[in-house]
């Protein structure tokens, strides 16, 4: 069996797992509802309460988890490929916390009410700013340590700015939303939130299409990649902008959900033969699966105890991160 076939098999497998989790997430909520009846009801002009729960509460939540998870997964894979560093992820290189910072600035200042794209635009701008800052700090050929230190610094700066803005916000509810922006939640998303995040994420995904070959070439080293005709600075610009667009839009709605972008590419890398190009679509599917699964798990807690989905992804992600550190010590 050749590797191409195996790759398509993996994609098909991940795709069917994703479809299964997506359907499952429509069935699980704080109250059991007859889903088949709800689907039939939603076809009618006069929707019933159960069809409302399906189409206005559970469906947007599942869609947001799917798009946000896929975004974090694919952007993590792209960043790890570009920087040839297993620790690069939207969370670690600042684009996630930067996006949250931009979204917080737009939301609590009241600009988000001015026009509907203001929120994702703020997220995109914040994400771009933070990533560029890390990139400049780490330097063009910065090693792992420099990159992580720069990421830690920018993350800390973004978090303190979020904290400051939230404390100064005129809304009395703002301070309690600190946890949301630091850990992320998709509990109360509506279809409107989904439409807000969709254009930016789709644009970001589209920009990533076709970068696989360049990322594959990059594994051989920068000089080799250049001799193979890869324009490195253009590739960098393209990936940074794509990540900012996708992660910025997603996180402006969900808050900074951690570890998905780090863990998913790692888990899948051996399955795609360590090829960054093939890792991109696989990580998109894997990220969506992980976030959907985490969101389903969050719903299984009894109603009233509101566990944020980001708490769960971090709970799974942090031990994995430790495992990575232990692994790297053996090198």
């Amino acid at each position, binding site marked *: 069996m050749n590797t191409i076939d195996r790759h398509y098999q993996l994609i098909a497998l991940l795709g069917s797992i994703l479809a299964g989790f997506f359907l499952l997430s429509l069935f699980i909520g704080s*109250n059991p509802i007859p889903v088949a009846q709800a689907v039939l009801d939603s076809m009618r002009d006069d929707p019933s*309460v159960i069809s409302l729960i399906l189409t*206005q*509460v559970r469906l947007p939540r599942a869609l947001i988890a799917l798009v946000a998870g896929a975004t974090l997964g694919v952007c993590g894979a792209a960043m790890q490929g570009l920087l040839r560093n297993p620790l690069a992820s939207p969370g670690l290189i600042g684009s996630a916390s930067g996006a949250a910072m931009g979204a917080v600035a737009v*939301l609590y200042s009241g600009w988000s009410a001015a026009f509907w794209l203001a929120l994702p635009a703020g997220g995109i701008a914040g994400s771009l700013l933070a990533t560029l800052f890390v990139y400049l700090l780490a330097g063009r050929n910065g090693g792992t340590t420099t990159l992580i230190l720069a990421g830690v610094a920018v993350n800390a700066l973004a978090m303190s700015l979020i904290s400051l803005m939230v404390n100064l916000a*005129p809304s009395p*509810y703002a301070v309690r939303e600190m946890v949301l922006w630091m850990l992320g939640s998709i509990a*109360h998303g*509506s279809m409107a939130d989904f439409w807000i995040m969709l254009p930016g994420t789709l644009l970001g995904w589209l920009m990533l299409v076709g970068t696989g070959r360049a990322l594959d070439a990059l594994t051989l080293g920068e000089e080799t990649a250049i001799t193979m005709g890869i324009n490195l600075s253009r590739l960098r610009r393209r990936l940074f902008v794509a990540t900012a667009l996708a992660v910025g839009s997603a996180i402006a709605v969900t808050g900074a959900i951690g570890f998905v972008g780090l863990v998913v590419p790692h888990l899948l890398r051996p399955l795609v033969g360590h090829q960054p190009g093939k890792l991109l679509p696989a990580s998109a599917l894997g990220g969506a699966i992980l976030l959907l699964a985490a969101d389903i798990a969050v719903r299984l807690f009894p109603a009233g105890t509101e566990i944020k989905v980001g708490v769960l992804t971090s709970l799974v992600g942090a031990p994995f991160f430790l495992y990575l550190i232990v692994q790297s010590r053996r090198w």
Partner: protein
Amino acid sequence: MGGYRAYSVFLTCILVYAGISKAQPPSRVVSINLCSDQLLLMLARPRQIASISRLALEPNSSYMSDAAAGFPVNDAKLEQLLSLDPDLILAGGYSSPSLIRLLKRLGYRVEIVPSSVNLEQIHSNIRLVARLVGDEDLGETIIEEMNLRVHQISVRSSSTRNRALFYQPRGYTSGSGTLQDLALTLAGWRNLSAELGVNGYGSLDLESLLISNPDQIFTSAYAPETDSVAQRQLRHPALAWVTGNNPLIDIPYRYWICGGPMLVDAVEALADAHQRLH
């Protein structure tokens, strides 16, 4: 020990002064809590009021913000209160116990207006403040007027009790034992949150809210014209759908941040909404 002597002379003066002033109505009343502020502003003569808390001026929180304009404000800080030279200090149920203990130890007369969640408690608080400021007749007049308006509302409200609930940012709702529950019931509504078993203020998830199938959803915005994720929750399209595109009705927060005669204004607004439904 000159400083100590001066201090004890000062303390004695205060004690003697407080002793004398008990005989006649207080002339320098200081209130350190929004709830006692509002009752004081309703029941005392303006010249009796020495100071009210800063929140009394804030129009979203204070029903008496117009009447409060012009009075000196305090932030319930000890030094500030001493410099006001009060002969009666009114505090609320949630005022700092250590501050109250200290004021009492220094010989000041401190009276606490407890928080109230039913009509009897509201009446007893009105009587308490009326007695303290020496105008019990005015207190009785206000109570009679309240009872009359509540009675008029109950006469005009229809016999069918429709389903309603309060939904606040972050998914909070008012269950049994809250002023919102009292007002909804007086206005002829069924409070679904109380029926769902929410006691006091608790959270209600969106799915449970939709399944309870309310005819009307009310909210009581604490800080209008600000934005946050919590406040965006109230704009969820399913909320409008479930009530048949009945928009969310906002009842101003100042009617029930404290129990008082202003609660009847909220009951009237709720009863008007109930009538519009039929």
